[in-house]
């Protein structure tokens, strides 16, 4: 064997070993890369070590970026969750991707089970289906909530790659306020116009025709109640406006017993013997507040009962002390109120039966005045009623408004 051969052999062996080592590192890399979840890359020396280090750094950066993205996503979901709107993320085919709790509650969506369902499978109202089909989202859509009883405002906003956001907002309260304001102006005008038409009609007749004195007296007699009605309406409007804008009522002592006697007397005067009116005082106490306001509230409740109870009926006025304060209630055996009217009963000019209210001299503002006057004394008005059986109106005062009774001299 020549020296050259030995050198070649050694070189070959050395190359072989080096090759084996490289192959071992390569196998390590392969094994590492084939794991389903990447761990840190293997340790190694030399050029391989450099490659592994680069991979290591690259992986760290990726992990960090992924964590940041995940956090960003959690944060934005949390943000969307906290919005007072219902938010639903829809894909290009209007299928549900995700929605927040408000959307779940308002539109009856379930973010888990309804994922990838077309949104129209769940929100099925024909108006909404048509809204999506027309694809004109410049105006929001008003819709009754799928659960019923509430009004939603729905709007679609496009974003990203043909994706859409469906925003929903509960506008039940806003819609009611809007309707009330609209109705109020219409109602005031109408209520004032009716007696005014009668008045001007008579005035024209008196002006144009030569009438004898007796005839004129008759006409004036017919005109007076109309003027009276207009005056009453304006008085009530002013009272209501005063209640709304005046500073909180003084805490003067209101002697309750004489006040209740007066209320009863007024109810009896209006009834003119057609009803049995009783007054019961269980637990003497006085009230702290503005006497004029409380008197007007109580009188309104009592005279309402007289108006809506057929002759021969019974009206029971009652004051009693309770664990949380005191309450004044008016119970009648009248026609009662359908439950659907109860929530709106204290709205201005809200009338269950228009003809009846006017014919008995109501202005349609009584219960609004009662509610405002009571609210200014931290008292609440509760109404229980059964159609055909009768109603009970209860004004509940907190104990802070009560004061031990003091008898008045005389």
């Amino acid at each position: 064997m020549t020296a050259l051969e030995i050198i070649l052999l050694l070189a070959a062996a050395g190359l072989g070993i080096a090759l084996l080592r490289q192959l071992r590192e390569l196998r390590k890399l392969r094994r590492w890369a084939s794991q389903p979840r990447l761990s840190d890359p293997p340790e190694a020396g030399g050029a391989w070590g450099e490659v592994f280090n680069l991979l290591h750094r690259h992986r760290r950066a990726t992990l960090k970026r992924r964590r940041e993205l995940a956090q960003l996503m959690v944060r934005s979901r949390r943000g969307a969750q906290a919005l007072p709107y219902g938010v639903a993320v829809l894909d290009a085919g209007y299928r549900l991707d995700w929605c927040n709790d408000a959307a779940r509650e308002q539109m009856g969506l379930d973010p888990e089970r309804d994922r990838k369902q077309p949104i129209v499978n769940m929100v099925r109202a024909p108006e909404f289906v048509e809204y999506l089909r027309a694809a004109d989202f410049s105006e929001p859509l008003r819709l009754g909530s799928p659960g019923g009883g509430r009004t939603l405002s729905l709007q679609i906003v496009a974003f990203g790659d043909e994706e859409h956001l469906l925003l929903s907002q509960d506008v039940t309260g806003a819609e009611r306020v809007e309707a009330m304001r609209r109705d109020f102006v219409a109602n005031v005008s109408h209520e004032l116009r009716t007696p005014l038409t009668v008045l001007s009609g008579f005035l024209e007749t008196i002006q144009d025709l030569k009438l004898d004195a007796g005839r004129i007296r008759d006409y004036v007699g017919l005109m007076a109640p109309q003027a009276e009605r207009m005056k009453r309406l304006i008085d009530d409007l002013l009272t209501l406006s005063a209640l709304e804008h005046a500073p909180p009522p003084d805490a003067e002592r209101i002697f309750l017993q004489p006040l209740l006697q007066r209320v009863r007397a007024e109810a009896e005067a209006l009834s003119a013997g057609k009803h049995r009116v009783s007054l019961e005082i269980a637990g003497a106490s006085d009230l702290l507040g503005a006497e004029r306001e409380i008197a007007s509230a109580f009188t309104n409740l009592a005279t309402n009962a007289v108006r809506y109870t057929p002759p021969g009926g019974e009206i029971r006025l009652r004051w009693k002390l309770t664990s949380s304060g005191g309450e004044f209630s008016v119970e009648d055996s009248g026609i009662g109120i359908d439950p659907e009217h109860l929530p709106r009963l204290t709205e201005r000019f809200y009338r269950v039966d228009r003809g009846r209210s006017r014919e008995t001299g109501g202005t349609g503002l009584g219960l609004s005045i009662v509610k405002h006057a009571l609210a200014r004394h931290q008292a609440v008005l509760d109404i229980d009623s059964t159609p055909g059986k009768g109603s009970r109106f209860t004004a509940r005062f907190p104990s802070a408004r009560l004061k031990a009774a003091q008898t008045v001299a005389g």
Partner: protein
Amino acid sequence: MGTAEHISKQFEADLDTTRTRVLQMGGLVEAQILAAIQAFATGDATLVAQVIENDARVNGYEVAIDGACNHIVVKRQPAASDLRLIMAISKIVTDLERSGDEAEKIARMAAKIHEHGAHHAQRFPAIRHAAQIAVKMLRQALDAFARLDVASAAEVLKEDSELDAEFRSVLRQLITYMMEDPRTITASLETVWVAKAIERIGDHSKNIAEQVIYIVKGTDVRHTSFADIEREIAKD
């Protein structure tokens, strides 16, 4: 992509489209019932006309969906659960169409009742309460169909007995009215028809819920006691 896979994707899409159409028909029927009941409460003549006019749309849905079902059966010859879905859909559509007819009936009756004088209907909140139960049942049955949710379908079956009880109490009340004041007999009899229509809507909703159980479980639960159905659902 292989041809077989392509065909199955297309089939899947056809089924989804049909399902969505059934649900949209359901949404329309629900709106029809609500409008009819509103017409009963208020006597609003435009609402009555609208309900009657829209019934044609409900019928249109029925024809179109039935056609689509036939088409799928003929062209794809579906088996097992897909076939069950198609068959259930064509039954559900019939129930929806009948519910739509009941809504139309309510609207027509509402118009008649209000011709006789409106106050009787206004004072009849029990009817509206029954209607709320019926609409809720229908909505829940449709939700159960969309989600293939057996538990929620079973709840609908339970609610039907609540509605039946409500119907009986409405009848008793109407009989009392008629005995107290014979002048209300005409309006009361017409109100009975409205109550009956509401009760029928509840029955149709129950049928739909039964079809949902059939789709998922493959068992026919029609004419089965509720306790048995609950046992059946609990299986597997």
